[in-house]
């Protein structure tokens, strides 16, 4: 005697079985027992106790959320600083161009900072899984960059010829941005292994 296959039993369970299958199930105690076992198995699956994570992932997620916001604010601040620097450059720096020993260094640092911002944005760190240590490092660097931006914003409000302090701040920003990019890239490389 031919019995129902598992496919047939599953179809019958979903009210999609064939006429033959329905009739056979009604007549065959073996297949009825098999169907009953299927229902029991599913009931047991549904009754399995929920498993919770061994580690708390919220601190990492929180740092990512806070970091993303800081990055968003920093992007706007960087654009504001760039615009302010452009205006100041037109109004003040131009007469000094070629005469200031710092003008070239300043321009280079600004360009490096902008390209690192672009690199980080293209890398899209918010969509990637990172370890708690990497997230903590990134958050620390974000804070330090925000502090540098604060100083730069203050200086950009008082146009002056490029001086060592301004150049140093932009170079610090580049250095911190580079570390931030390294943290994200290294972390991604590690996760990808």
């Amino acid at each position, binding site marked *: 005697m031919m019995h129902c*296959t598992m*496919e047939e039993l599953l179809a019958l369970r979903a009210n999609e079985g064939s006429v033959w299958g329905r009739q056979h199930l009604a007549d065959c105690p073996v297949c009825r027992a098999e169907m009953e076992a299927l229902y029991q*198995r*599913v009931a047991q699956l549904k009754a399995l106790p929920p498993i919770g*994570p061994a580690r708390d*992932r919220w601190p990492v*997620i929180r740092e990512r959320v806070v970091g993303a916001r800081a990055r968003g604010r920093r992007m706007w601040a960087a654009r504001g600083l760039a615009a302010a620097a452009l205006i100041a450059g037109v109004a003040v720096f131009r007469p000094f161009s070629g005469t200031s020993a710092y003008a070239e260094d300043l321009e280079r640092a600004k360009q490096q900072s902008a390209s690192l911002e672009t690199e980080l944005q293209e890398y899209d760190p918010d*969509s990637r899984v990172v370890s708690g240590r990497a997230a903590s490092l990134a958050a620390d660097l974000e804070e330090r960059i925000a502090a540098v931006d604060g100083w730069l914003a203050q200086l950009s409000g008082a146009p002056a010829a490029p001086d060592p302090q301004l150049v140093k701040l932009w170079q610090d920003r580049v250095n911190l941005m580079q570390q931030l990019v390294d943290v994200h890239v290294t972390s991604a490389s590690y996760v990808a292994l």
Partner: protein
Amino acid sequence: MTISLAVPDILIARAKSGDVEALEELYRAFETPVYNLARRILRHPEDAEDVLQETFLEVVRSIRAYRGEGHLWGWIRRIASSKALMRIRRDQVRSEEAFDEGAVEGTPPIGVPAHIDLERAMARLSETSRAVVWLHDVEGYTHEEIAEMMGKTVSFSKSQLARAHTRLRRYLEGEGIAR
């Protein structure tokens, strides 16, 4: 697993506005259901933890797009399921296994209490089979929905389910308990 999590609308509104405390409350409310779903599908706890993290990062990014149609758990569960299935696909691409027949069955994991026969049997299934069984029979997704999430056909989902139940039955008989 039956979820009856009632989340107050005010909490969702606060989360949508970016309130970090509200986001944490949502995380606390759903971390176990999300992790459980991922863990039932994926073989390694670390992968399930990554899915948990990826899911909530997605929730944070997209919560504003949640329009309140249906239970919030349904929305989050869909994200978690997709993330878990993406991970299976990615791992299979890396190991050059096919999505379907890749079905390399595992051995019973060390550390699972011996009396949990069904869990042991589930652990021996491939991740793809586990995913289909769990999503269909426990979470209540249709074959059409599972096929869409997996990027496969409805008949693929149906045949995976049948194969998985055949194996579960065999494993449980082998464990010496009633099927």
